[in-house]
């Protein structure tokens, strides 16, 4: 059987006056029914390769060498008029961001049927039938009703299913999926990947899956092509690549992947609490109503959460999007109103005067998710790191500069980089700058909200290492907030699993990960892709219902979960039958 898609020596170049190769001499062949993973870190050229296949390259980028063949059609050099009928019909693509990839002003039905009618001479009614069939195929319940809905009425996972339905409605020969699950929660990711695998077999198409996640690669790939800086590092069957990587880069990449259950477990000694949150609640009303009255819906974002973080300890909050973990971070930083008690180093944040609040702020610092957005692009990085010192009027100008230089050295940057601007640094370096800024005031507690989620795995591993070193050196407590179970497993002393604003299970990392007691914790852990192709766990597409929502009627707070100590400080919420089934 001839391969479905072939690339031979594909070379992509940007710019005309000073041309630069973004992808150089890339070759692969994809058979029907096969899954090829393009794996690599950001900037490796994997997305550009996909766009080149689709004929959707940005204007500035050109194919300057090699060719792409789809079946018996050579795609490179094909004029737009000839490419358009192929696109979406014989080769389709889905993208990373389901939230923005659908047109917000058009109904799902409209967006589906137009894809069908662009390639098939069918009437409205027939296109509609095909659209319903396509939604059924991706196991979306009540397909007919979804056609009338707009994208904003669907969750992220549902939208990605719609994207898949749209791409597969015409049964293409090849589907390119560019990080299709990166923006989704792990349990949803699992469903979507299983669905893609199922449909691939059903239609008999070739699947090119682009991902940075070696766990995903191990779970779904037949063959893997590892890319780095536009070059092919190595290519081979997935078992081969994981068991006997030939290239140093592949070895390093695999070594950097956080794995669950590999962290050294030490018994956590009882520590003096730096932070104690008791019965923390954050609620806000959804619609303002007339002059603040008459609002009927309320988000119970955080509902009666209590935890402690000790000196030199890392407590992680894990959970899926909307579980309230970031809201807790914002309450700690004083950014949202809350009820309950937040006690930092013996002082209750609620009953402090101005000066007391300032002092408290000094002790609690934050590191955010996006190192690109959290540094002011118009300030020098040295000034950014010095800013907390300036705000709290600490030291003279010269002293501050000296301290910043010291911090730069601490986080692995060079003090002579202080006078540069944020855009001159890579993502990992910027996150180091953010860490230096958080350290400037010698805080007792650092709240790290998804602080390594946006980083490539190799960078992520180094930043995690740095965080650990700094904890040893300065005795800082971390409240580490993340959706990534494997990362949490690596860094945490203790872990609290959150769902719908409440903690369902809390204990040492060993207790929670090695002996999970709550059904939700178990489901989360099972959903994490394992970076080992010999231990594949993905089977058939399971469809969980819509994710429960923390939005409720205003006067109807969710029932409080009762945490029970099952031994050694391992707390587990009691489960009703209904919840275990959900």
């Amino acid at each position, binding site marked *: 059987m001839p391969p479905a898609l072939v690339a031979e020596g594909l070379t992509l170049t940007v710019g005309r006056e000073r041309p630069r190769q973004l992808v150089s001499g890339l070759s692969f062949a994809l058979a029907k029914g096969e899954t090829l993973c393009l794996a690599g870190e950001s900037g490796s050229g994997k997305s550009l390769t996909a766009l080149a296949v*689709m004929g*959707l390259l940005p204007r500035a980028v050109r194919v300057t060498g090699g060719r792409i063949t789809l079946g018996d059609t050579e795609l490179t050099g094909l004029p737009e008029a000839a490419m*358009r*009928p*192929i*696109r*979406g*019909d014989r080769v*389709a*693509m889905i*993208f990373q*961001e389901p939230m*923005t*990839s*659908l*047109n*917000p*002003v*058009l109904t799902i039905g409209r967006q589906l049927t*137009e*894809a069908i009618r*662009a*390639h098939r001479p069918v009437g409205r009614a027939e296109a509609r039938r095909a659209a319903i069939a396509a939604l059924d195929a991706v196991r979306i319940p009540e397909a007919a009703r979804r056609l009338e809905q*707009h994208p*904003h009425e669907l969750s992220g996972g549902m939208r990605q299913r719609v*994207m898949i339905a*749209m*791409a597969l409605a015409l049964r293409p020969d090849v589907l390119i999926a560019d990080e299709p699950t990166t923006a989704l929660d792990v349990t949803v990711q699992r469903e979507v990947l299983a669905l893609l695998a199922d449909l691939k077999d059903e239609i008999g198409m070739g699947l090119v899956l682009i991902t940075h996640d070696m766990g995903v690669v191990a779970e779904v790939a037949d063959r893997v092509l590892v890319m780095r800086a536009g070059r092919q590092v190595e290519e081979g069957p997935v078992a081969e690549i994981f068991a006997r990587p030939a290239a140093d880069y592949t070895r390093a990449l695999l070594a950097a992947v956080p794995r669950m259950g590999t962290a050294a477990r030490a018994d956590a000694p009882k520590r003096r609490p730096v932070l104690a949150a008791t019965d923390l609640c954050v609620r806000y009303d959804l*619609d303002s109503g*007339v002059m603040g009255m008459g609002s009927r819906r309320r988000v119970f974002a955080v509902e009666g959460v209590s935890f402690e973080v000790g000196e030199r300890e890392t407590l992680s909050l894990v959970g899926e999007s909307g579980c309230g973990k970031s809201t807790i971070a914002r309450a700690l930083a004083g950014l949202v109103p809350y009820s309950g008690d937040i006690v930092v180093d013996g002082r209750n944040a609620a009953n402090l005067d101005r000066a007391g609040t300032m002092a408290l702020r000094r002790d609690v610092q934050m590191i955010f998710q996006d190192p690109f957005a959290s540094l002011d692009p118009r300030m020098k990085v040295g000034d950014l790191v010095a800013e907390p010192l300036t705000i709290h009027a600490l030291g003279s100008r010269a002293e501050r500069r000296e301290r910043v230089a010291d911090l730069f050295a601490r986080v692995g940057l060079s003090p002579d980089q202080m006078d540069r601007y944020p855009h001159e640094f890579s993502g990992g370096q910027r996150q180091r700058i953010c860490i230096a800024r958080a350290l400037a005031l010698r805080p007792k507690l650092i709240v790290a909200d998804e602080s390594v989620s946006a980083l490539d795995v190799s960078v992520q591993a180094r930043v995690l290492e740095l965080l650990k070193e700094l904890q040893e050196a300065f005795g800082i407590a971390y409240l580490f907030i993340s959706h990534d179970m494997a990362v949490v497993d690596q860094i945490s002393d203790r872990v609290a699993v959150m769902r719908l604003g409440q903690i369902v299970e809390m204990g040492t990392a060993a207790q929670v990960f090695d002996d999970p007691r709550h059904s939700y914790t178990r489901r989360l852990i099972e959903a994490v892709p394992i970076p080992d192709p010999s231990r594949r766990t993905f089977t058939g597409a399971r469809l969980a219902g819509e994710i429960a929502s923390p939005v409720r009627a205003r006067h109807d707070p969710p029932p409080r979960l009762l945490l029970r100590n099952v031994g050694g400080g391992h707390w587990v919420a009691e489960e009703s039958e209904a919840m275990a089934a959900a």
Partner: protein
Amino acid sequence: MAYIAKRLLFSALILVGVSFITFALLYLLPADPVRQIAGRSATAQTVENIRHQLGLDQPFFVQYARYFWSLVQGDLGRSYVQRAEVSSLIAARLPASLLLMAAGIVVELVFGLTLGIVAALRRGTATDQALMITSFTAVSAPQFVVGLLLLYVFAVELGWFPIGGYGTFAHLVLPAVTLGVLGMGWYSRMMRSSMIEVLRQDYIRTARAKGLPRLTIFVRHAMPNAILPIIAMIGIDIGLFMSGIVVVESVFGWPGIGQLAWQAIQRVDIPIIMGVTLVSACAIVLGNLLADLVTPLIDPRIKLRD
């Protein structure tokens, strides 16, 4: 429905506020209407008599209350200078102004949006630059200059259109263009940036990946999204129009409320000034209300909340 009722209530409150502010401003104005009515030669006694007769010697809040009460009854007061009811003066001239405004909106939207779209599709090219220079000129040119220039070229020199007045379609062209030029400049710039922004959205890439023809992508996917910020702008724009109308109607001798206002300002005819101000405030409030009601028809994410 409840939403619309709520919005109408707010609109009414805004108008009450406007009536109070205009009243207060004119009350504080140093110009004395009584002197105007009485004439230069009137004795102090006559002046006092007229003042008393008009109730202008009463305390501020009493005057305002009286003014507001008659306002509610649809009485905008009497022009001392023109010796006529303000409401009938405005009513007589309103249709001409509305016609001019409608024509102005058509001009600015048709030309503005077209220029903006063409510039966005040709961005970075000479066409784009030429169009943006044009729109920049349009934005910067004062309306009376544009008006006089158009008059000179197309009416005086070429004789294609009448020099001024009211009645036929030909009379409408130059004033409408003058009124619309400013908005054309704004809308073309807004439309250009809005369209460029929309064209780089993920859903446009999705539409292309589906293999849709360029025209479909543009008309069905890009246009509705790009036009959204413009609609909100049109509501605000009606206010801009009211000031434009004063200038344009004066230049072209167009018998609308702009001209009425202009004459009233020159003669310190306070009831007319207040009446016209209130009518324009109504227009602005209505314009915004309309824009807010139209937006959800295009953008399903925005719901009319009750």
